[in-house]
């Protein structure tokens, strides 16, 4: 996984994101496992809690799994262009409307962030203090959130009217100009991975039996 990430040039971002995202869960996993896992070899004691070797082992195992999951999801997100992904789905049969909504949602995030910033500016220019304490910030929430919601709704309204003029509500399939190349070795690799997954799952199950 990490090798692939290095290959795609996203290793650093991936590591940073995975660690950041898994951190909260990781901390609670470590705390719970280390101190409450039934075990015989006690390493040290804090109050009524015994930290066992078995606990540490279990925690370590769980952390590795957690890391594996978050890096694989992260790798996918960082290396796939959402547009290409969604339109490819459409080519394979997903409804065009769903495809559009998926892409539009993803692409809407930067606009939303930008809009929130502009709204923040307008309100700060009227004296809203966004640099103060918690209570001040809470009070300032409505003037910041209100316009974001309203303008986003107006935006959606305007946008959907404009789209009607381009036949977005026409039922039926479309002949897309985009095509994601699907080379035979890529397809082969996908089957191989699927087979490996099935094999690993079987091994787990039969190993346990």
């Amino acid at each position, binding site marked *: 996984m990490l090798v692939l990430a290095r290959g795609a040039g996203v290793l650093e971002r991936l590591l940073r994101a995975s660690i950041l995202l898994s951190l909260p869960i990781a901390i609670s996993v470590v705390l719970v496992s280390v101190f409450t896992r039934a075990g015989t070899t006690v390493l040290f004691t804090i109050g009524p809690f015994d930290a066992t070797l078995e606990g540490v082992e279990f925690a370590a195992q769980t952390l590795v799994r957690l890391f594996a999951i978050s890096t694989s999801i992260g790798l996918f997100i960082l290396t796939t262009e959402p547009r290409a992904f969604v339109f490819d789905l459409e080519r394979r049969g997903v409804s065009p409307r769903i495809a559009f909504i998926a892409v539009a949602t993803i692409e809407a995030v930067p606009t939303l962030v930008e809009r929130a910033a502009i709204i923040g500016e307008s309100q700060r*220019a*009227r004296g*809203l203090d966004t640099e103060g304490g918690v209570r001040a910030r809470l009070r300032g929430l409505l003037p910041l959130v209100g316009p974001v919601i309203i303008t986003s709704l107006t935006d959606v309204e305007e946008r959907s009217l404009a789209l009607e003029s381009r036949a977005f509500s026409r039922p039926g399939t479309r002949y897309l100009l985009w095509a994601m190349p699907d080379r035979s070795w890529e397809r082969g690799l996908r089957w191989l991975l699927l087979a490996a997954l099935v094999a690993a799952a079987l091994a787990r199950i039969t190993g346990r039996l």
Partner: protein
Amino acid sequence: MTELRFEGVSFVYPDGTRALEGVDLEIPHGQRVAIVGQNGSGKSTLVRHLDGLLRPTEGRVLHDGADIAGRRVAALAATVGIAFQNPDRQIFAGKVRDEVAFGPRILGRDAAQVAAAVTSALEAVGLADDVEANPYDLGYSRRKLLAFASVLAMDTPVLVLDEPTTGQDARGIARVQAVVDDVSGSGRTVIAISHDMRFVAESFERVVVMGVGRVILDGPPTEVFAEAAWPVLGSTYLEPTHAARVGARLGLGSTPTEADLVESLASGTIVRPTG
């Protein structure tokens, strides 16, 4: 009394865009200044430095000779009120009255002062009858006037208007002109960013033309719209007013407004650019 000054101000956005390059500008108290230039010339970036929304990458911004670097936006808002272009980016209250009251309330005025400020601001923009209305029941032009009123109510010594006439119909523009006259008449500084050259020529005594992050022309309308300045205007994709063009064609010198042109034709005199 608030004199505004930019000393060697440069600004670079986080993405590397250079928006201002070493701008030196002084705006004495009580002046009516219009800032013009194509989109991207640095106009909006410049005015956002006045209340600290943006801080210079180089140089200083001064209010009455004091650097504003350490002061918070919330504090500077009491001196410089900015009404932004899109009213919907600001309106959040359910009633016109509450929207206009927001600014003065935040500035710490008492209930009586707030009420007085709201009444006078709404009257100034012609929305006195809509005080109990929901802002979104007003059309776009009136919402723009509402946003304008909310900043007016803060009674700041300096008032900055970002594209006040864009999207307005003729009545709305006349209203904006009347308010600019009013505010300026009471001795406050009015700064406006605008694309409407006629509005600029008619309502402002000084025009600052920006191009590519710099001030490329700075003077009264008679100078800025005079034929000699047209190439400079053209470099930032601006055109002189219709009246200026006709006046130049007829050899009448510089006639930035229709009133100037008519006056010149009537009296047979030629208006020379001043300064």
